[in-house]
């Protein structure tokens, strides 16, 4: 299971806009490189990220090879209610990673 990290506040006031920062471990092999023996290195990237907030999609990202290794994605959301945010990454070769974080909205 890949290493993923979420950075977001654990509590927020209702209606407050919070920043969410995510980081996931992945080499993001572009598919344009060749090894020192001239062998093409196959593309192997994360191409999709989805964040849901109590089941509702609040952010979706399409990633391409130009995203650096260990993709960092940051975005905002309105703290509407207490609950769970679920973060899901998927990509080539069946790669998936999931993280979740709770938020308490007062």
């Amino acid at each position, binding site marked *: 299971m890949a290493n993923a990290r979420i950075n977001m506040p654990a509590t927020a006031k209702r209606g407050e806009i919070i920043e969410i920062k995510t980081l996931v471990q992945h080499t993001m092999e572009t598919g344009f490189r*060749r090894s*020192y*023996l*001239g*062998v*093409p290195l196959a593309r192997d990237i994360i191409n999709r990220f989805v964040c849901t907030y109590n089941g509702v999609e609040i952010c979706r990202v399409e990633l391409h090879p130009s995203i650096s290794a260990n993709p960092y994605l940051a975005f905002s959301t309105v703290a509407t209610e207490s609950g769970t945010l679920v973060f899901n990454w998927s990509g080539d070769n069946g790669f998936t990673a999931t993280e979740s974080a709770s938020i308490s909205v007062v």
Partner: protein
Amino acid sequence: MIIDTPKISRRSFIIGSAAIGSGLALGMNIPFGPRVARAADGSPEVTAWVVIRPDDTVVIRIARSEMGQGTLTGLAQMCAEELECDWSKVTTEYPTPGQSVARKRAWGDFSTGGSRGIRESHEYVRKGGATARVMLVQAAADAWKVPAAECSVANSVITHGPSGRKTTFGAVAEAASRITPPKDVPLKDPKTWKLIGKPIKRLDTTDKLTGKQIYGADLTLPGMLNATIKECPVFGGKVKSFDAAKVAGMKGVKKVVQVGDTAVAVIADTWWQAKTALDALPIVWDEGENAKVSSASIADLLKAGLDADQAFVGNQNGDAKTAIAGAAKRVEAVYAYPYQNHAAMEPMNATARYTADKCEVWCGTQNGEAAFAATLTASGLPADKCEVYKLLLGGGFGRRGAFHDYVRQAVLVAKQMPGVPVKLLWTREEDMTQGRYHPVTQCKLVGGFDAGNNLTGLHMRISGQSILTAVRPEALKDGADPATFQGVVPSGEFEFGYSVPNLLIDHAMRNPHVPPGFWRGVNINQNAIYIECFMDELAQAAGQDALEFRRKLMAKHPKHLAVLNAVAERAGWGKPAPQGVFRGLAQMKAFNSYVAACAEISVSGDNKVKIQRIVCATDPGYAVNPAQIERQIAGSFVYGLSAVFDQECTVKNGRIEQTNFNTYNSMRIAQMPKVEAIVMPSGGFWGGVGEPTICVAAPAVLNAYFAATGKRIRSFPLKNHGIALV
């Protein structure tokens, strides 16, 4: 619209110029011409390249870095040539990279490497001077209400022919700076050059001789602290732990800080206190896998590549393998070239001062913009809050161009002492063991002859490290590193000087963990040894004179041949040498210049080599300052010959063993041979000067050594064979 008079301060210089940049580009209609940009003392810029003071002093802006190679003077000469100013009143200044960013790179590229300083900026630097001249003349003509075409200019004096009226640059600079710069001012015909091509004295010598010149390591700022640093000696390893408490009480120690994942630094009042504490600091390293690597394991890795099936092709025509397989006579040799360090006289250093509002760095660098980029990244601040002030470098040689690890470290250290300038200066040991090394390679060369002793095939297989894979992987071409083939490619700046009917030059890439870098000359150093020594081996096998053998292969390479013939003739090749003196030749094209050398040496009974004289010829297309070129030739020989005689960096337990000059020696004045330089610019192209000649001294000496002793040396440095330079 009201035009403000810009305040005389550097801050407003930046603001004013940024406003001008955008004002002009947006086509804003500003009456009386554009706002005037000013230098810090209020003197007007006539163009971004030229500031003129009321006393007629001309300040020429130089973007590239002076590191002893004379580029500062050369660029100023070119600008001054077109400007038609009084050379005795010329001085120079470095715009900062922050100003460059703010003014959308008004001075072009700052990077100084690849022997490009003159040849890539000559056109726009000259244009900068020419444009300023036209504006100055126009200003005078406007004041006199005469046509500009009736005015002439020389030595900062503008004269109106018909009336005899005169004025000087200083008097009209203000008015000139308000004129919209004309586009496409024609440049002078090289035949009319008065300054370019003359052996003018350098602008930076006096301060260096009097000790007034400040280098990065000399810098002092009010309230400054000093620091030194240790990075994990095994490349790729990390800091596991360190015990700051053990040194915290030592005299002068202010802080012990970890820098990134891989290094620890001590900040103290004085540098000696910082170094003493760092030496005493217990540090536990997580050395990682690379701790197992040694020179022997690297050599094994490279050896396997000499016969590997797969290799990247750099030059090919015909079918070398078949030609060689069917040859009447076959000659084979294997050469090896070690890791080497830049070993600049001034160890890596940078001074940084960080606050949340501003990060400033003072350092010697070959590329002000790259130092600035490193500052931005390490500080986390935006460009308008950062600045880098370039100081002269005590040696660049490629260490301070592509790598700004010392800038990044200095900023990270300074961040731990906000508001306080901190000078981070490496120890010699750190400088020797945290280099960016000349890459390690081996080379197998095989030549085939027909029954008539004609060369029918040549295969040069290089096995070893790629610089670009580590430093700039985006520049690889389908995985291949084109830089590996410098000096032996089919065409261009590094064109191979021989026509061989069946040729294959290829590279089996093998990358050890030692970080590679661009060492003066880069890959021409070993490629010239490989090919020029092997050419001699082939000549010998064919029973032919080394010069004649080469000439037969160079009919299609007239400029390569011209420099080779020039050194041969000057050295008296073909005529008997004095008793006990033996000669050797070498030639190559590199960085777009054609270079050749003939060395004359004598060898005493116990293998002591005295280089009596080296004749060197270079054709760089144009010669801006011939005296400077001669000095660069001699200087490059000091570097290149020291390397081949005495310098290698060996690896044990994953780390570099040589920590100081006791095990990494350099040539002394008494050992320096007489160098006779033939500067023979043939015109029509611009070739480099800083690097090309470095590669021909060693093979010329090695070929002379064979002539003297009958022994071929194929691995280096020579000290490993008991051969010493005297």
